[in-house]
């Protein structure tokens, strides 16, 4: 019976009812976003002139109602959710990958290299986020992938700092010394000895930043810098819905509630992950 560190964390997580429930909610929301639009007879872009700004109902097959242009909100909300989640996931992966590589190298190699790398991060951190996003938008056009990259490219900075901190804390540990004494070269040490031992807290952090990324994307889209028509993201939908709040509140409620549910459950799950890892040994 092998009780590897991952398995023990998994066991601790399973015992945490709140975390499990949150994970189920996230899974449900993801499933809804993927499968949901197929269930509806409507699609993303079709303008239904007969039901402009209609209330939610079953009679006209617009389950969440329609927006100002007669587009079905059920499909748009779920499609929007899909986009937001994709952004969150992709940007999260980019930021994790970049941050991990950068932080592990800086932390392990140390010395002048570390100094240079950290100066670079500090300069990048000083750049206003919005300028950077605008800059990338200008270069890559209104490409959603550019958006992912922009957000990920910004998020990796903090990940890098965290990874570097974790790496520094294990740098002097005896098993790293043992690896050096065994004749291992630096790439092997970083890949086999540093990364597996720092990735725990980093994954937890990454999980907790996905909601932040989604929120940031929503914010950008709200400002008009993110997803463009006719595609939707939760942010753009919320922007539209905010304008119609008095007359047609469901236009705000649908995407808003979805976003809240997603963020809260991701946060709770992230907390559960962190506790599960903390309980190891």
């Amino acid at each position, binding site marked *: 019976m092998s009780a590897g560190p991952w398995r023990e964390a998994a066991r601790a997580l399973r015992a945490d009812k709140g975390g499990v429930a949150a994970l189920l909610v996230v899974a449900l929301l993801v499933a809804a976003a993927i499968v949901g639009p197929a269930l509806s007879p409507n699609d993303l872009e079709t303008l239904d002139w007969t039901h402009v700004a209609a209330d939610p109902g079953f009679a006209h097959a617009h389950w969440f109602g329609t927006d100002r242009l007669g587009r079905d909100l059920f499909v748009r909300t779920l499609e929007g959710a899909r986009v937001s989640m994709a952004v969150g996931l992709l940007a999260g992966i980019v930021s994790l990958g970049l941050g991990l590589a950068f932080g592990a190298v800086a932390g392990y190699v140390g010395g002048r290299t570390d100094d240079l790398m950290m100066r670079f991060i500090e300069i990048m951190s000083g750049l206003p986020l919005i300028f950077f996003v605008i800059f990338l938008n200008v270069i890559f056009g209104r490409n959603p992938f550019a958006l992912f990259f922009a957000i990920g490219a910004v998020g990796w900075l903090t990940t890098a700092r965290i990874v570097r901190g974790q790496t520094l804390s294990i740098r002097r540990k005896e098993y790293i010394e*043992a690896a050096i*004494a065994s*004749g291992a070269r630096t790439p092997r040490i970083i890949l086999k000895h540093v990364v*597996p031992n720092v990735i725990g807290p980093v994954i937890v952090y990454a999980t907790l930043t996905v909601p932040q990324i989604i929120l940031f994307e929503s914010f950008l889209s709200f400002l008009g810098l993110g997803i463009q028509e006719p595609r939707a993201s939760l942010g753009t939908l919320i922007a539209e819905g905010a304008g119609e709040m008095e007359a047609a509140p469901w236009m705000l409620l649908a995407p808003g509630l979805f976003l809240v549910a997603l963020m809260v459950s991701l946060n709770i799950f992230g907390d559960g992950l962190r506790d599960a890892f903390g309980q190891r*040994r």
Partner: protein
Amino acid sequence: MNDPLLQVRDLGVDFGARAALDAVSFDVARGETVGLVGESGAGKSTLARAVLRLIPASRGAVLWGGEDLLTCDARALRRHRRDLQIVFQDPLASLNPRMTVGEALAEPLKIFEPELAAGQRRARVDRMLERVGLTVPMSARYPHEFSGGQCQRIGIARAMMQEPKLLVCDEPVSSLDVSIQGQIVNLLADLQREFGTAMLFISHNLAVVRHLSHRVMVIYCGRIVETASCDELFAAPAHPYTRALLAAVPDPTRIFEAPGPDGAPAPARPRAAGEAPPGGEIPSGCAFRDRCAYAQEACAAAVPRLESLGGIHAVACHRRRELVYS
């Protein structure tokens, strides 16, 4: 000594302004075990790491296979590491918690014999596991599932995978229960017999050093103060510090006269007063003079050098010719 395996010449390590290690010179011959005894802070671990270039040395040379390990390039150093291995004091800490035992043992093979197929690697790992007294199924488990003694066996197995010519043992049994220490010491002795590995055995535990060593060096405040054959050191120690160290080990034959509640007076034993001075406060001249029962004014003037008493027995004491111990 003809054709020694390892030659350390004038090794010195400074941490900031203080010299943690100074003017250390010794040889290790093939198949020989050299013991290094001293108390905490004396520089034993510093010596182990400096010799293997795990920490940078400030002065001196470490000659091995015709090269100076301290100045050779990184690739040559890695090549040499195949024959120069180390066993650490804290067995659990020296194992990567995220690697199974099998993976940890396979790593030296992946580094130095990358041409091996997975099956061959597996066979070598299994063989070594059994050689150190563990079982094959243990290779799938993680270090934290094992006891201290078992972890140390794993550490030794890892170090022996490439059948190194020299094994540096840095306090390998100090964190183990007395009842388990013997197992590990006997294992090391067996492995030495089987593979002809030389050892630099570092410990503060005199009985353990005595069991394994052919020659013994005593280190105090970063300097070697005495070196002799094992028998000679324990039978006729020449340095006051060595004598105090030996006297501090409780004598089992005296245990049988344990004091009653009123306490029996203890016979006069050579005592070291106080403790080893912390790094920044080493006295001038002989570092031991503040604690030495035989210190004189001359002892403050100059650092005593290791001088031969005859044969390989050497001692660093200004009064070595005068002092006659009972």
